Every structure is written in C-alpha cells, then in structure tokens.
C-alpha cells in the first residue's frame, strides 16, 4: 500500500520535474485559478438571492410586469 502510494507520488513529482513548457503553463494555471476563485468568486460573484426567500423573490419577478 505504502509502496503504491510512494510510486504515485513519485510519478507526479518526476512528471512535474521533467516539464519544460509545463512550468510556464502551471504558472498561468495557478494565477488564473487564483483570479477565478480568490478574486472573482469572493469579491464579484456574490449570490444576489442570498438571505432572501428565493421562491418568493422569483415569483415576484415573474409576476410584476409593466404590461
């Protein structure tokens, strides 16, 4: 079991170590994921219906029209 786990870890470690273009790509991936989840998700993607009675709010939107 331990041997298998060690082999899997070594597989990934060696894989990352041998990467050439991959290092730049990983830098791009990490920066991108940081922007997506740490910046955009926290500060810009807020749930507009949080804390509201969701069915009631949507029913209000569906029934209040200008017609």
């Amino acid at each position, binding site marked *: 079991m331990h041997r298998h786990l060690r082999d899997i870890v070594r597989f*990934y470690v060696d894989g990352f170590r041998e990467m050439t273009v991959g290092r730049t*790509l990983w830098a791009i991936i990490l920066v*991108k994921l940081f922007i997506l989840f740490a910046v955009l998700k926290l500060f810009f993607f807020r749930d507009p219906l949080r804390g509201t009675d969701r*069915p009631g709010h*949507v*029913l209000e939107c569906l029934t*209040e029209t*200008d*017609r």
Partner: protein
Amino acid sequence: MFSDYISTVDWSRAQFAMTAIYHWLFVPLTLGLSVLVAIMETAYVRTGDAFWRRTTKFWMRLFGINFAIGVATGIILEFEFGTNWSNYSHFVGDIFGAPLAIEGIMAFFMESTFIAVMFFGWGKVSRKAHLAATWLTAAGANLSAWWILVANAWMQHPAGCSFNLETVRNEMTSFTEVAFSPVAVNKFCHTATSSFTLAALFVVGVSAWYLLRRREEPMARRSIAVASAFGLVAALFTASTGDRSGAIVARVQPMKLAAMEALYVGEEGAPLTVLGIPRAQPVNGELVRYKIDIPKMLSLMSFRDPDAYVPGIRDLVAGNPERGIPSVAEKMERGRAAIDTLAAYRTARDAGDRAAEERIAALFDASTPQGAEFLDRNFSCLGYGYLERPEQVVPNVPLLFWSFRTMVGAGTLFILILAAMWWFNRRGTLTEKRWFLWTAVWCIPLAYLASQAGWVVAEVGRQPWAIQDLMPVGVAASKMPSGSVATTFFLFLALFTALLVAEVSIMLRQIKIGPEKE
C-alpha cells in the same frame, strides 16, 4: 419593471456572449486535437515506429498548452448563471444544474485523471496503458462537451420537466428526455464533428507552415495525411448533422430558421438563399436584395419535402390561421393569463388563503383535464406574456443571415480544401503548391471564425428567449445595478485577453521550436 433592467440585461448578455466566445476559442481544439493525438499514438503503438512517438509528443505538447490555458475558463460562465441570471437559475436550476454537475463530477475528473498519465506516463507505464490514457482523455473531453450541450439544448427546446408552483422551480421528470432529446444528440454530434474539423485544420495548417519553411517535412506530410483524412470525414459529418440541425430547428424554433434565411413571407416550395444582402425592414414582402437562391431547397432541407410550407417571419409574428400558426399577440394573451394565475397564487400565499392556493395549484397538475389544458394552452406560452410588442420575438436578422452563411460557406470550403490536401499529399505534389499551403495556414483562423459563427446562429437565433417560449432574457436576469455587471465585463475581458495572448504566444513559440529530438 421589465424595461428598468434593460441595460442590466444588455450588459449581462454582452458579458455572457464575451465569456462564451473566449471560452470557445479553447474548447474545439481540445475536443478535436485530443482525438487526433490518440490516433497518432495508436499508429505508434501498432507500428512501434519512433517517428510516430515523436510526432504524437509534438502535437500532444500543443494540446497541453491549449488545455492548460483554456481549462476552467468555462467556470466563469457557471458563475454568471448564479449572479447575472439568478431568476433563470432558480426557475430551471433543478434541470439545468444536473448535466452541469454530471459534467463536473464524471467527465471533468475522468479527463483530468488520465491527462496526468498522458503527459507524465511516457516510459513509466506500458505503451498500451499510455494509449488507453490518451483515448480516455479524449473521451473525457468529449463527454464534458456532451453534458454542457445537453444543458444548452434544453434551453433551446425544454423537455422532460414539470413546474412546481410551491418552489417556483421546474423539476426534471425524465432524465432520458433531457439527456437524449433529438436536439441534444444532434447538437453534440454537430458541435463535436465541427470541433474535429477545426482541430484537423489546425494540424494541417501548422504542418503546411513547416512545409513552407522546408522544415520537419516527414512529420508535416504524415500529420497532413492523418489530419486531412480525419478532417474530411469530420467535415462531411458536420455537413450531415448541420442538415439535420436545420430540420430540427424548422420544427422546434421556426423563427430562428426564418431569421437565418431572412424569409419574411412563408411559402410552399421555399427556396434556399445562397447569397444576397439582407435589410432590417421588408420591402414588398422581401427582406433580401440581389438574392441568389436554389428553388425548393429550403422546403426540402427543412421538412424533407420540396413542396412543404415553410413559415416566414410575418406568418410567425402575425399568425397564419390557414396554416394553423397562432399569432404572437394570441400567445401573449395566453402567457399573460398564466402570469395572472401566478400573481393570484402569490396574493393567496401572502394572505395565507389556503383554499385559493390549492385551487390555483390544481391548475398546475397535468394529470387533471383542467390542469393539462392550462399547462398546454397558457403556461407553455408564459414567456410571451412578458413581451411588450409581438415583433420582439424576431432576432437580429442580418447578423443571423451572415453568420449562417459564414458557417456554411466556410464548412463547404473546408471539405474541398481537406479533400485536395489529402489528394495532393498522397500524390507527393503538395510542397510544389505554395499558394495552397498558405491557404491551409489561413484556414486556421477561418475555422475559428466559422465555429464562432455557428454559436452566433444558435444563440442569437433564439433571442429573446433564455428558455424557449418560457422565459425571456429580461425576466431571467438578476435584479442588480448595470454598473456592477459592466465592471466585471471589463475584468473578464482583460483576463481572457491575457489568456488568449499567452496561448497564442506560447503556441507560436512551440511551433517555431518544433518537435523535440529524441
């Protein structure tokens, strides 16, 4: 209230369109190149020829760049459903969310598990195990696309659901109807095969560049042999599924078809317009000037009958009783009755009037004759009740007209170019035809343009609907200040542009470096 949020809706639409367009710059190459790489690796495993190993590793490197930079760009679209389209997300989230969740859990994990073996496993796992990982990565990528397209197809043609009045949500009643609706199946086949064509053109174009530079000739020629044959088959399938798509659209979204063809007045034996200049308003019942058309072809392609009647924009807006087509005004009345019923339920609920609540709830029970009639006659037209004018159901005709012709024209050109590429390469005369090699290089951006044009046809063509006939975009959008949507629009624009610049520059550098010496 509807008109107060127009600017928010417009920003939300622009933001979604922009993120979807950028996301789609990465996806089709991933879908197609993963399969091409798997085919090349199969050649390596079958022949044991180190040449194919080197060739596979080169294209796999370009696949990896595209995958790494494009991965997770679709997550922004999913965020936007929750923030900019919260009414939509609540109204149909139980249905729409299911394929997206399956995509995340099954396909995405499958793809990302095997991609590690694909990139790190050379020389560490057996050849056959590595090949299996490569094929499973390709299968995972395409399975991801399947579930996303199931979700999109459902918006174009809602099926397999019922409305729960208490929760104000549509709920899935048949997973099979959602996952395997003819719209979803055909949409996946058309999108996947067109992506295979784009990837084939990418490989052919890059290989053509090597031939122009007189570099890597053996790799370029054998890559062209594989990619042109693969691309030709894919392009022919794309044409076939596109034809099927037209026939499906004629039945489930007739306005989209009429707008694509700029057909104002419906007719029997309707011609297919090959070229012409569309205008915004009809003159003498005609929306296209200087028209070149093929007689009866639109009827034949839409209903498999050269004399079939194809409704035009006027028929679909004003109605055509002779053909059994109701007017939009009539549907608006039916939809307004549905909205009034929802409003009565809301009043009863707020007042705690249980008797009235139960009486209204019975109307949403499809198992009773009264409920079946209400759902069929009124609730199915709910979205029309929010329209202010019947003409609002007409999408942007000139944009659709040109996008459709760009997609079809380029697709036809690709079939010819891929066939000629395969033939010249087979005869060994390709390197002499430098103009043709340059044409192949320029087909790369043209393939992206055609692919984007296809999505413009699909998405602009269904306006004003977020969900066909049930919910217009104005109701689907969140109530939020337009300024915050505008701010995030520019943030995403900057992020995606940076990613695209990174993609293009890294890709070009790697193409210039070429395959690694082994």
